[in-house]
């Protein structure tokens, strides 16, 4: 144990030291090798311009290298591999795509992902907005927000354990130790094995993600709501608008662009949802999703890289519109700077 702690510490020091060494070292070399110098005939050669044209690349080189190796190259490579067989050696054309469109598991995963997309972003934004608005109206709003905030720090796997315990099922004769079934039996209904209940179990898994994403939405919306001038709201109230009208006619339109950003951010998270499904069901009982199916094919039977890549590409294709929208939005903001 102690040995590992020491190894880890050493590794940390080396890793950080190496990074620092790179930046300090390359800059030092640049300054030395392209230093201003005085020629024998006494004329001075100032090479600041050369130095400063190279220096930016020293600054961004590590970042560019890592981005290229870990993101740009893999995207191209995944695209290529989706046209190859399981081992990635023989070209098979569109065979993997043909497989996907008649594979029951794949179609189920697409269907489930669509279901998640329809519900999780909407529910998270809805609850997040509700908390943000309500917390502004009560004296204990800050405490309430802190409590609701906490699940954001919990890992998907940790949250899965927490909720698996909530959903725990014992036979109808036993005392239920899962709070959901305890509630259900108290109300006089039969206890259910929620996680294995086809179709509906999808919703019980979604609850976990909504539980984690609501605090995120809440934080962003709280900040956005604070940006609405108090006078605007007061004016509306004096005009006789009730609280619902104030919310739907004034607050919501004012923060609509924020809602869109939060919605798309959660959409991307939903498209990649993996840990919760893996930990709760591993795709059994009709809960398969794309990211879990992709992971499965990476290792199933020694790994089928062609099919895995095809499934990954499905997620990528769904993300592309958001990516384009993101870039457009960025360019618009840049233009205003």
């Amino acid at each position: 144990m102690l040995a590992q702690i020491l190894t880890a510490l050493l590794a940390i020091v080396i890793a950080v030291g190496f990074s620092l060494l790179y930046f300090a070292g390359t800059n030092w070399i640049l300054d030395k090798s392209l230093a201003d110098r005085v020629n024998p005939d006494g004329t001075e050669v100032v090479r600041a311009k050369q130095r400063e044209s190279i220096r930016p690349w020293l600054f961004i080189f590590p970042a560019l290298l890592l981005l290229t190796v870990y993101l740009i190259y893999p995207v191209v490579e995944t695209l290529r591999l989706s046209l190859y067989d399981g081992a990635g050696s023989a070209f098979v054309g569109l065979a993997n795509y043909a497989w996907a469109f008649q594979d029951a598991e794949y179609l189920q995963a697409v269907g489930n992902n669509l279901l998640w997309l329809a519900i999780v972003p909407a529910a998270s934004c809805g609850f997040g907005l509700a908390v943000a608005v309500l917390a502004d109206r009560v004296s204990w709003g800050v405490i309430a927000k802190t409590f609701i905030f906490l699940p954001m720090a919990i890992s998907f796997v940790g949250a899965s354990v927490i909720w698996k315990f909530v959903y725990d099922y014992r036979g109808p004769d036993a005392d239920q130790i899962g709070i959901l079934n305890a509630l259900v039996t108290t109300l006089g209904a039969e206890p259910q094995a929620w996680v294995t209940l086809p179709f509906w179990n999808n919703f019980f898994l979604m609850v976990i993600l909504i539980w984690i994403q609501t605090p995120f939405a809440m934080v962003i919306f709280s900040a956005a709501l604070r940006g609405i001038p108090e006078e605007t709201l007061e004016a509306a109230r004096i005009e006789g608008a009730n609280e619902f009208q104030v919310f739907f006619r004034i607050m919501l339109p004012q923060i609509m662009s924020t809602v869109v950003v939060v919605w798309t951010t959660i959409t991307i998270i939903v498209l990649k949802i993996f840990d919760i499904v893996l930990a709760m069901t591993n795709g059994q009982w009709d809960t398969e999703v794309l990211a879990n199916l992709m992971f499965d094919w990476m290792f199933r039977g020694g790994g089928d890289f062609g099919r895995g890549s095809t499934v990954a590409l499905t997620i990528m294709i769904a993300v592309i519109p958001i990516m384009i929208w993101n870039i457009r939005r960025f360019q618009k903001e840049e233009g205003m700077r």
Partner: protein
Amino acid sequence: MAMVAGGAKAKLGRFAAHAALATLVLIWTIPTLGLLVSSFRDKDQLIVSGWWSALSSSEQTAFGRTGTAADQVEQGGQFVIEGDFLGDGQPGAIATFGESQRNLEAFTAGETAALEDGTEFLLNEDGTYRWTSEQPFEHERGERIFFISEVPPIFTLANYVEVLTAEGIGQSFINTLTVAVPATIIPILTAAFAAYAFSWMQFRGRQILFVIVVGLLVVPLQMSLIPLLRMYNGIGEVFGADPKSYLGIWLAHTGFGLPLAIYLLRNYIGSLPRELMESAKVDGATHFDIFTRMVLPLSVPALASFAIFQFLWVWNDLLVALVFLGKRPDQIVLTSQLRELLGSRGDNWEILTSSAFVTIVVPICVFLALQRYFVRGLLGGSVKG
């Protein structure tokens, strides 16, 4: 009149706001509270009663084995076997007992029961029993007597001791730390230099490169996994090294975290006052000096925001760890270990709850202590995928 009605309505509205918010707070806290309470409960109590009844005593069914014929003594013409079912310091009080598992409530504790074979059996609340017979006992194996006992609530750290030692959670805690700290520091350094270059240095292709970074913000991790797995395996083969290594996962996390890091830090560094940079340059400072002596110290809030973000992300990550690290004891991280336990110890809630709590305690502390920075990071980077 109208004023009064309006006042009542407003009061009702305020009450509704309190009630609705209280409900939401409950839904968002009760599941975690259940985990926390359960992780401190005795494992035998945990499986028979809900955690919400943790403070009341629980009923447990158990059985005791009587002494054998060898233990009998003759007292006044009767043969007697005495003993104690709740011997070795077991807590609780026996409520009822019976001869078979189906008939646990046949007799009340303290009452002398006439058993089917004509003998008499007295079982006291404290677990001591006295078994008497007119005929000598002949059995060689103790008889089983089933009973229900009321056990007072027991809270214990035993679950934590077990998971930290026997279930490998302690070791994986260190593994996770080993992954998370460098995987937080390396991208910060790398991204800070790049963000400075993107904000304050002139070079060809600056705009287009940054647009690419913005595009990469949302590229799903899944796109990278297979090519990188193949690449790592290839490198491992060429150099005869293990393709699953800490260095490998640090770099992977760095690569995946960089777009957000560069984006966030550029927003911040780019908004520093231009005059500051200009005056430093007039004084003859190079970009390297300006960056290390002025920009880095000024950017601490932004660096902290990203650091918390990345640290939580890496700490909580499962997917990257599954692909880039092995499941050997010296590599398996907390999330991965917890997932293994979900599979292998799925019914041992005392193990699962305490393990889960160990995995979430660090993020929660980081989060509560540095909430301010975290929120700032969230607000600055809410476009990340």
